[in-house]
């Protein structure tokens, strides 16, 4: 009995705790819907996402958003397993934009037409972005952000070997959108110019027969995302417009020419290293071993951190052809088996379409946005006039003028996989025509099932 009577201070605490629990209980029993989002765990992505979620939940107290995060490569496998098992626990999934068709065809995504009106869609995002999120007329996945490709120059190496660099965005210079647009239009280097410079910048500095400084390198070597611009610059699409045929496209003359050029980089002119994987290749530029690097805009903070003295120029093109840059990034879609589609759509809208959500996302994560509003904001904002933030201005220009999306085809995964192994073979010396002919045949065998 004695134990029941606590000293006054303790009983006060107990009372407060009871009242607090009662309070929490009443608040939470206000039936909140929880939606789960299957997404990335890489780098700062979850933190940025959580900021958006916090803002969303503040406005929508009866919806809670929880995350299931996975590293990049594992995310795809997990999506396959969960979607195939019709996991009702997943409401939203992050869709890598080229997979929209594939996921739609296989019934992983629920159409979002009832949540996003056609007008809304066209007004909010740049055309290539929302088109890429559409399949057979239905809006399947909303663009979360986009991407762009830049041409990075190691200024120190250019100076050291007395080679004239291209006109570029440089540290210490203030610039404007119009100035950058002019550089992109008039002073863009051609691939021939790149090779010329590369030959002068590939050196065996130690004299031991091994090359220590390479003239040029791709970011995502042999990957479709990176190399699509080569053939497209010459005017050759990868597959037929309906996405169901590769013969005549993948092995067209334009692509054979592009592939030959690619092969020569490694085998004839030897200005680019073999056997460097996409994961390792930025490391080489970051450690000062490569003079010119083409790759995604996400490399900017990375190279800054590594202390490389670099400049950013517009992405090269084939002379006689047109400038083309890779683009597209992550979209978000509603899982077909979800039982909370309306709430999921609400969040998707907040994140991708509404100004508040998309702005938080952009400011935190820093990837090139897909919404027209944000692109215009970047164009006019003061902070993007100095290096390296002016890279965004270049990104805006490319997004509006040269961006080409990856081919829309339900067979994208196979196309990309075969493309990669084919171009790796080409890189290692296999004849381009032979390799591409074989590849086209294999892709078509796969695409046949969709007809």
């Amino acid at each position, binding site marked *: 009995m004695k134990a029941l009577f606590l000293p006054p201070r303790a009983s006060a605490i107990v009372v407060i705790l009871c009242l607090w629990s009662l309070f929490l209980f009443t608040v939470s029993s206000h039936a909140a819907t929880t939606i789960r989002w299957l997404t990335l765990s890489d780098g700062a992505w979850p933190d940025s996402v959580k900021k958006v979620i916090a803002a969303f939940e503040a406005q929508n107290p009866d919806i809670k958003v929880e995350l299931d995060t996975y590293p990049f490569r594992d995310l795809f*496998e997990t999506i*396959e397993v969960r*979607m*195939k*098992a*019709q996991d009702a626990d997943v409401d939203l999934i992050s869709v890598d934009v080229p997979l929209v068709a*594939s996921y739609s*065809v*296989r*019934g*992983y995504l629920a159409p979002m037409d009832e949540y996003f009106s056609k007008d809304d869609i066209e007004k909010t995002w740049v055309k290539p972005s929302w088109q890429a999120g559409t399949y057979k007329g239905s809006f399947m996945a909303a663009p979360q952000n986009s991407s762009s490709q830049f041409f990075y120059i190691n200024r120190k190496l250019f100076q050291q070997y007395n080679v004239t660099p291209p006109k570029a965005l440089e540290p210490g210079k203030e610039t404007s959108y119009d100035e950058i647009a002019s550089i992109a239009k008039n002073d863009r280097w051609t691939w021939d110019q790149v090779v010329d410079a590369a030959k002068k910048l590939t050196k065996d500095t130690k004299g031991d027969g*091994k*090359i220590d400084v390479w003239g040029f390198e791709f970011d995502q070597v042999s990957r479709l995302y990176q190399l699509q611009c080569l053939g497209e610059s010459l005017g050759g699409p990868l597959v037929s417009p309906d996405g169901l045929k590769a013969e005549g496209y993948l092995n067209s003359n334009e692509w054979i020419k592009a592939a030959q050029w690619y092969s020569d980089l490694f085998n004839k002119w030897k200005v680019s*290293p*073999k*056997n*460097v994987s996409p994961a390792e290749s930025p490391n080489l530029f970051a450690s000062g071993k490569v003079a010119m690097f083409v790759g995604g805009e996400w490399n900017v903070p990375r190279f800054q951190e590594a202390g490389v003295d670099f400049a950013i120029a517009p992405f090269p093109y084939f002379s006689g052809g047109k400038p083309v840059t890779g683009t597209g990034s992550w979209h978000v879609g509603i899982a*077909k*088996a979800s039982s909370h589609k309306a709430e999921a759509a609400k969040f998707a809208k907040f994140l991708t379409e509404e100004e508040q959500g998309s702005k938080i996302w952009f400011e935190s994560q820093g990837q090139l946005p897909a919404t027209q509003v944000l692109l215009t904001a970047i164009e006019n904002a003061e902070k993007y006039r100095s290096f390296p933030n002016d890279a965004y201005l270049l990104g805006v220009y490319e997004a509006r003028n040269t961006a080409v999306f990856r081919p829309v085809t339900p*067979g994208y*995964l*196979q196309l990309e*996989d075969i493309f*990669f*192994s084919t171009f*790796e*073979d080409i890189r*290692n010396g*296999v004849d381009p025509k032979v390799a591409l002919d074989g590849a086209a045949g*294999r892709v078509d*065998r*796969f695409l046949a*099932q969709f007809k």
Partner: protein
Amino acid sequence: MKSRSEALVAYLMLVPAFLALAIFRFYPIAVTCWGSLCTESFVVAGKQIFVGLANYLDLFQDPIFWKSVWVTIKLNVVINPLQVCLALLLAVMANQRFRGIGFYRLLFFVPIGVSLPIACIVWRIMLDPNSGLIDSILAVAKIPAQPFLINQDQALWCIVAIATWKGASFWMIFLWAGLQDVPREVQEAAKIDGASQVQRFLRITLPLIKRPLLFVLVTDTAVNFLLFVPMFLLTRGGPSYSTNVLMYEAYKTGFVYGQMGKALAIVMVLLALVMVAVVAQFRLFQREQS
């Protein structure tokens, strides 16, 4: 009566294992078999449509599939005897008695701790044709730099080397345990009889470790037929499909291309191959037994 109660006891002892196997192996395997006879519906996610042997027919007409069969057989005909022989050799080495053997044994055990993915990453860097360690050593012997993993004639054998690095060490343990059971008296007796070391080994020791040897051979064969991680991490089936073993082709078909039914059909073919190899090994040992 006696044999009936013996049978009963046996079944009881098997219940826990079989219950677990039934739920977590037999049932999924049955579903897998069934899955190989189906293909995916394009209307409802995950729904299966029975198509009979269509997946198999499709496979048999695919030249890439046949190339995978050939690569798989080529790999296994070499790697299984190689790993078992090396493991045996290492086990014998580990079984010697001299000062410092404990330290050496420690070193022999190291690959067990290193997971295969890490081993692959490190070996890949060492085999780099631009500036890897192995090529540097070859240069000392005036041998030109080899392309290794990016060359279609060499890649598969590089994978054999890497897998053997781990496999020989791992299986050595079991064979070494088996060697421990060979009583020293028997070996001593043979020594007195004047038999040479090799003769002693072949005539006396080897027959006495037949059971662990069969275990190692069968299990290693199964593991190698299903080998997948090095191809996944190092070569992605290339260059030019020269390392595209059936297991990798199945993984790609199922998890990358999303054609589960066809992937399962590839797995069934692979299983048939393994079964043939394993049954052959059992028979071989049984014959030698009698």
